């Protein structure tokens, strides 16, 4: 035993790892994404003036900011511009507080099967992107099923399908027709960070057509896990230990947050608050916990001052729900304000969707609202078996 054994991995081991290949999709997507932004003033010092990105990149940059935040929602680690300054009151705004407490009651009364062979989550997600000519907005959609196997040694699966891309609104459709009704969009540099197709790393081309379903085995830490809490995959046994009282749950989460945070962040109240909020969102949005635990998570959220009620809204799949969330003012990285919304079904306390919305500028002075969302179609226990497509990753 020596210090070498304390290293997770040695550089030599990376030779045989996909992540270690600089020519691989992970490294290349990252490189082109970083270089799609102009370098800072420093680059000008050499007299070779950077001419600026292609015009659509500039417009897409604010979308990139959106996308950046959106990814947090699967493991919602929230970083807010200025959480405390907005409201000095000790609890959530009255209307949001009322809504969250109502959701808590609804959640605890919900009648759901409490067990099954799999915890199944089916989501539809959408990402809006600007067309390469900045003329209109297209929406790319994916559907994903996550089958987390409860039985010891049983295989968990993720089944994904790209549902294609098409112009978002009738106005977008008109502009798309004018552009010759393209069925694919080719971006001059890697558009990946802006259109959210990072899961399909080869595509600088976004296609309108639906793709085949593909299944992948969930490996590694996913084995025997029922999902992620405080950003860590947790075992089914651990999930059963999550307490259902508000105070007990808060203490439990605080303790997990402290255990996970080293290097001083555990002492940062802003970080702790954001980590607690994220953990509650993980519970509400998707963890296989009892209705009473979900209710307790809602009760903790109801004590958070920055949560605002966003009223009754239609979710991206057209279902009525109630939304809470917050607005983020413009700041570094996002030119336009954006809104983060969590939409729930008030009758059951179950999640419908979460989304991030912002505004982008298109050609001809048009502005458009673009959204990045994940909507939940199914969330619960099932004894069914996944119907696995032929294609496997």
């Amino acid at each position: 035993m020596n210090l070498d054994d304390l290293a997770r991995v040695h550089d030599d081991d990376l030779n045989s790892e996909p992540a270690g290949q600089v020519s691989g999709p992970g490294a290349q997507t990252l490189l082109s994404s970083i270089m799609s932004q102009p370098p800072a003033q420093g680059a000008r010092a050499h007299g070779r003036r950077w001419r600026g990105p292609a015009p659509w990149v500039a417009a897409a940059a604010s979308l990139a900011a959106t996308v950046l935040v959106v990814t947090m929602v699967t493991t919602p680690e929230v970083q807010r511009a200025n959480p405390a300054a907005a409201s000095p009151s000790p609890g959530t705004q009255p209307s949001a507080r009322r809504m969250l407490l109502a959701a808590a009651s609804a959640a605890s009364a919900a009648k759901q099967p409490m067990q099954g062979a799999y915890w199944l989550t089916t989501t539809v997600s959408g990402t809006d992107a600007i067309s390469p000519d900045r003329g209109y907005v297209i929406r790319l959609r994916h559907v994903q099923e996550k089958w987390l196997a409860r039985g010891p040694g049983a295989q968990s699966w993720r089944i994904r399908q790209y549902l294609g891309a098409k112009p978002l609104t009738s106005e977008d459709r008109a502009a798309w027709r004018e552009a010759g009704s393209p069925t694919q969009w080719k971006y001059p540099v890697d558009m990946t960070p802006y259109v959210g197709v990072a899961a399909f790393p080869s595509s600088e081309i976004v296609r309108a057509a639906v793709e085949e379903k593909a299944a992948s085995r969930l490996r590694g830490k996913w084995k025997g896990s029922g999902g992620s809490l405080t950003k860590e995959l947790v075992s089914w046994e651990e999930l059963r230990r999550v307490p259902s009282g508000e105070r007990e749950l808060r203490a439990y989460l605080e303790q997990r947050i402290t255990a996970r945070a080293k290097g001083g962040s555990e002492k940062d109240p802003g970080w702790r608050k954001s980590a607690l909020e994220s953990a509650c969102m993980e519970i509400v949005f998707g963890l296989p916990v009892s209705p009473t635990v979900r209710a307790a998570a809602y009760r903790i959220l109801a004590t958070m001052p920055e949560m605002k009620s966003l009223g009754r809204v239609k979710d991206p799949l057209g279902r009525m729900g109630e939304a809470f969330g917050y607005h983020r003012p413009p700041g570094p990285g996002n030119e336009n304000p954006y809104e983060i919304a969590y939409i729930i079904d008030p009758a059951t306390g179950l999640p419908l969707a979460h989304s991030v919305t912002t505004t982008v500028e298109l050609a001809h002075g048009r502005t458009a609202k673009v959204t990045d969302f994940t909507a939940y179609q199914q969330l619960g226990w099932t004894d069914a078996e996944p119907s696995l497509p032929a294609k496997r990753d």
Partner: protein
Amino acid sequence: MGSTPHGRFVQIYEHAYRPVLGYVLRRCQDPDDAADVVAETFAIAWQRVNEIPAGDEARFWLYGVARKALANHRRGERRHERRAAALREQIITSPALTKPPPGEYTQLGRVFRSLNDDDRELLSLVAWEKLDTEQLAHTLGITRNAVRVRLHRARKRFMRALTDAGIDLPLFERSTL
């Protein structure tokens, strides 16, 4: 190719990608976060492309940037960035990269983690990145002499902590430091 900032950065990236990824993976508590830290490191490097030293020193410079990115990340500036999604996917689906380090729960691991950040980083750079005195000086931006002094002190503190934990000293002296 290497004369424009773009060409130069691509070259640096190709050289330094793997060592930087390794550096970050070895220091992230959660491998899930490594992709974001790598992204942050190279994004900063791109912003400061003209400050990156030539040759192998670029790598040492990037270690320094990565260390700051890690610290920022720990302070809560963490987010899942879309541009890092493909890399994150590759990392979290790799059994080798997601399992805890072999010695994490050993007494040695605990003692090592109990060291202060600077000592731990210095000893890690020697043990994991295999840097010599001169390379350490470049990485930390201090003189070689200062490196020697700091290294000596860090080793002494580590030895003392090991002794306190009842670990056989000479063996470690020989095998690790």
